[in-house]
């Protein structure tokens, strides 16, 4: 039965960046589809910890196993022990979702090298660290699904977005290179290109938000759960032959000139 192929029952997932709107929706959707789901923050900020805990509560409310961890996604030690804990507590690691979301916006002449490095360390190096840590359990299982979530900044430029644009474009092509490297090991690596979504970190400004509502082809932003559907497909047995792809879920925003 075709719909059964989407079920994630018996699978386990780790979502990093689950305090953000998109990461949280992905974690909940994976749990709804039947997976046990561990979640982690992008940084150790207190409000992220609260959000990650509340995300874990939603996972438990669905009768799935899981835990919430407060980590700095740029820390090699944090990421390594997080992945080991997820594999140990959930029994295996089938799905890794990298939804790292450290927002940052500044004119480039005002960006200090330390700020630039921090954006790269979290949003790009953090994804590398997580993929590298997940390689051990996934390669030994002979299967795995890595799903990196980027935004339109990976593909199009944005004023004051130079650091984020560079980091996310990096994640996008890291996805393709890793997909090739692991193509014969049973691990698929794909990216989701999320369009402008309610609750996104870089959408603090009300004026931009109103303009997007007016100019987007469908005249509305995405709801976070609308980004999560493709994550479930990518994580499932149905997507065994899908690898190295960046799939955009952006309401047609990339269709216009």
């Amino acid at each position, binding site marked *: *039965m*075709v*719909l059964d*192929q*989407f*079920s994630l029952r018996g699978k386990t997932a780790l979502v990093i960046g689950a305090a953000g709107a998109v990461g949280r929706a992905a974690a909940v*959707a994976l749990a*709804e*589809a039947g997976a046990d789901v561990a979640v982690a923050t992008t940084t150790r900020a207190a409000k992220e910890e609260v959000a990650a805990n509340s995300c874990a509560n939603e996972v438990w409310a669905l009768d799935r196993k899981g835990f919430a961890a407060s980590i700095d996604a740029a820390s090699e030690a944090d990421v390594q022990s997080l992945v080991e804990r997820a594999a140990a507590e959930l029994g295996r690691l089938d799905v890794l979702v990298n939804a790292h979301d450290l927002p940052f916006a500044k004119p480039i002449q005002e960006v200090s090298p330390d700020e630039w490095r921090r954006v790269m360390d979290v949003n790009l190096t953090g994804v590398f660290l997580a993929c590298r840590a997940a390689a051990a359990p996934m390669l030994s299982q002979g299967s795995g699904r890595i799903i990196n979530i980027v935004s339109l900044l990976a593909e199009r430029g944005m004023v004051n977005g130079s650091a984020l644009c560079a980091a996310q474009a990096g994640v996008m092509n890291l*996805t*393709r*290179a890793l*997909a*090739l490297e692991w*193509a*014969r090991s049973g691990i698929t690596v794909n990216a989701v290109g999320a*369009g402008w979504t309610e609750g996104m970190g870089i959408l603090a400004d009300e004026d931009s938000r109103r303009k997007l509502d007016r100019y*987007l*082809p*469908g*005249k509305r932003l*995405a*709801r976070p*759960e*609308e*980004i*999560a*559907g*493709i994550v*479930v*497909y990518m994580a*499932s047995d*149905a*997507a*065994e*032959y*899908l*690898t*190295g*792809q960046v*799939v*955009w*879920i*952006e*309401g*047609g925003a*990339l*269709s*216009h000139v």
Partner: protein
Amino acid sequence: MGVLDKLRLDGKVAVVTGAGRGLGRAMALALAEAGCDIVAAARTRSQIDETAGLVRDGGRRCLVVPTDITDPASVAAMVESAIAEFGRIDILLNNAGGATEGMGKPVEEITDQEWHTGIDTNLSGTFYCCRAAIPHMLRQGGGKIINVTSGFGLRGGRDNFMYTSSKAGLINFTRSLAMTYAERNIQANLIAPGLFPHDNPAMVEWWRGGKFVPMGRLGRDEELGPLCVFLASDLSSYMNGDILALEGGGLAGGHAPTGFAPVVPLEADARRGEA
């Protein structure tokens, strides 16, 4: 409603062109399994009759309409009979295509006839089907259009002109559909299948079993089923004008045809380290 329930297509009607065999049949059957009634359109009656039998075995209704998608009148008649039978069209899967006439020729040898046949089959056919079906989707308050492109719609091919041009044309045609109808709740997206031999041993041989594909194998027709259901369902409600390529990783590298990508030699790095 759980995330998996959003995949259900109960009570919906899908028009599938090229439904008589291969990917078209596999996707029609997957849509039917997810709950759709099917309008199976293709040139060859005997093949769509077979597809229809399989759809009906699964408990869904199926209307068989022999159709030449390169003929606007034939397409219009097909859509009219779909509406007469089911009253609505929720999903239009423009899968029919192909046309090998003139393939393998350099540009200076391609005849006018070969050019027009290639473009008509792959590009104009999809236009005719959209033109006929969209008014019904608008009347109903929305719909899903799924067009089938190819890796050759994104990249060129030696001695491959009508196919690459028409498949690339479909990508931008679909983006314009997305721009035009997003506010009226029609989502239009593309599937780009990689190398699918449809159980044909000659094709398996021709593609050498997929050994150049990064994943090391060719695609299986039934793998397109869930992808097509995803694109036809509420789960893809914000995906519009976009491509989902199912092809085992070829496009991620693709430094040479069929997805071959050279491996960066490790010793080169070692030499740089010493310098």
